[in-house]
């Protein structure tokens, strides 16, 4: 019973990881850069949500506005960080180091502006334990906050999936992840597509940040580890696969909670990397990913 309860507790955290992972995987699939700044967008999104909630805005508008701010930040990162390198065709290593630099800059810049003290969101969601099932005198419960996060995550994923499958921009993004050059020849504006990709990635990252703020205290350093876990999840699920990211995120969230509950809290953060390394070595394409063909 404890086991099932731990699994349920892990699901909400898993949903947050999935949101972060999708931000990574869309940008990597289309622009081909490991967007190291994603963890920082997530952190800034959490701070945006914090300040909006402090000003007395209700939770849902605050979430939506933070997502908008997150997309703005992500697009600005692309405009000032990656675009000049893309124009020069030096994305390979220079792009990665630029991402590292921007991420350090944003993280410590936020540290200077917001101070390193942890901050807690005001009570935006009423906390209560909702019973699910009673077996043998023990009751499985889920907290209202976790339920909200899980529902919000699922809603965002469904909307994203609809956007990609049903709109022309979404279809173009899907095509871009397969062959950007041919898509350009078909008359698609690749720069606009890239901006849309960054906007979506930023919005999802910020949403994850706001969600996490409702459970844990936030601080400027939170993006470093969470961002990397997002990348681990993206790899676990398979790069380029949204469903894969969703499943991977839930697996990681549950695995972390089980590790903390049954093995040792000290290794909670390490388990994600251990799973990821194992997956990469056994099946480098991830759970649902496809193989990137190496061109000769």
């Amino acid at each position, binding site marked *: 019973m404890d086991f099932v309860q731990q699994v349920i507790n892990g699901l909400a955290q898993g949903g947050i990881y999935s949101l972060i992972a999708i931000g990574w995987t869309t940008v990597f699939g289309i622009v081909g850069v490991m967007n190291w700044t994603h963890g920082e967008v997530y952190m800034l999104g959490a701070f945006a949500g914090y300040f909006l909630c402090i000003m007395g805005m209700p939770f849902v508008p605050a979430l939506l506005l933070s997502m908008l701010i997150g997309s703005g930040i992500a697009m600005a990162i692309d405009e000032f960080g990656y675009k*000049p390198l893309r124009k020069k065709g030096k994305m390979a*290593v220079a792009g990665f180091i630029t991402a590292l*630099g*921007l991420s*350090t*800059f944003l993280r*410590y810049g936020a540290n*200077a502006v917001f101070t390193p003290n942890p901050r807690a969101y005001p009570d935006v969601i009423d906390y209560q334990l909702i019973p699910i099932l009673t077996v043998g005198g023990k009751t499985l419960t889920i907290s209202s906050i976790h339920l909200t996060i899980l529902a919000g995550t699922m809603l965002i994923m469904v909307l994203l999936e609809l956007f990609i499958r049903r709109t022309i921009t979404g279809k173009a993004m899907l095509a871009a992840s397969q062959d950007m050059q041919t898509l350009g020849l078909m008359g698609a504006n690749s720069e606009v597509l890239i901006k849309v990709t960054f906007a979506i990635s930023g919005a999802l990252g910020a949403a994850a940040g706001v969600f996490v703020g409702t459970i844990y205290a936030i601080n400027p350093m939170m993006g470093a580890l969470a961002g990397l876990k997002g990348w681990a999840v993206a790899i676990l699920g398979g790069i380029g696969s949204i469903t894969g990211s969703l499943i991977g995120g839930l697996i990681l969230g549950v695995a972390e909670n089980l590790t903390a509950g049954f093995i040792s809290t000290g290794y909670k953060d390490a388990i994600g*990397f251990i799973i990821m390394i194992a997956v*990469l070595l056994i099946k480098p394409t991830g759970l649902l990913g496809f193989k990137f063909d190496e061109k000769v």
Partner: protein
Amino acid sequence: MKNDSAASEVLTAGIESVPADVLTNTKKKFALPEGNSKWFFGTSGKTTFIGAAIFLLAICFLDSFTPVKVIPAYVKHILVSCLIYAILALGLNFVSGYIGQTSLGHAAFFGIGAYGTAVLMKYSGMNFWLTIPVAACIAALAALPLAASALRVKGSFLVVITYGFGEVLRYVAINTDSLGGSSGIPGIKVPTIFGIKMSKIGPTGKEGYLILCFLIVALLAFFMNRIEKSRTGYAFAAIREDEIAAVAMGIHTKYYKILAFVISAFICSIAGSIQVAYSSFVSPELLTSTQSILILTMVIVGGRRSIKGAILGAGLMTILPEILHSLKDAIGLSFDPWYILYGLILVIVMRVRPQGFWGNSSDA
């Protein structure tokens, strides 16, 4: 397309240069390569070494002859840090420079060296000088799984594997009681050389380490200079430029990739051992990803595959934060401006000079 031509150039250069040298200059069969034979302003490697050695000895022992202390211990401390980081940057150069794979886990090898030396000295009372090769061999063994993963994945995927490797080791160090947990192992004995304590050499006690690190850096520079134009160096170059072409040419890519990782780990571990002896203390701080990122940026900013570039990068990235720390104290800022500036420096360097200061423009 561009890669293919570069690869074939490297490969043909590797094949043709040897017979050409033999024919035209039979006495100097192994002439030094053009690129690295000239060091600073056209001086040869030997002259640079002698010049640097004299400069270093002057810094070390100037105070022994003057009544007042001219060079503060703080300056010597920073120089030792510079040289330790230079060893690390040169070690990482094997992976990030020669075979062109980005690694964000090299602090792990630094840490293995440090913890290896600390544990061996503390629990088995082994001589410091003996712990260096032992710890380095452990690090080299630990590099094998990482090298094995590099055979299966590369690029962005390898980055995250190396990062994960470093993080996992850090959690192991934090959670193992015999390794001192998050506070580390304090009180490592000061090593002796020829019966003299290292801390008793010179006026401030840092001179012994300064000379030791300098000798290792010089030895590494020499070793890497030679390896670049050896059969192994050409194999590395071929793998870096185009792995598929390298396999097609009959190069045993798996062997050379593992070799690069093992050598790299070995060298980084030596730096860790010296760091422990120098600070007589080891903590999981050495294993953080920030440390790995710092080492990588030293290599990239200085210029990949460039020996002097790695040394310059290490110096720059060690001295700048110290200057900024003192600036911070002088102005009275509430935060440390170094990391903010560090991020900006990386972005600007990549924009202006993607190959780094002394890098090869072909591999930007």
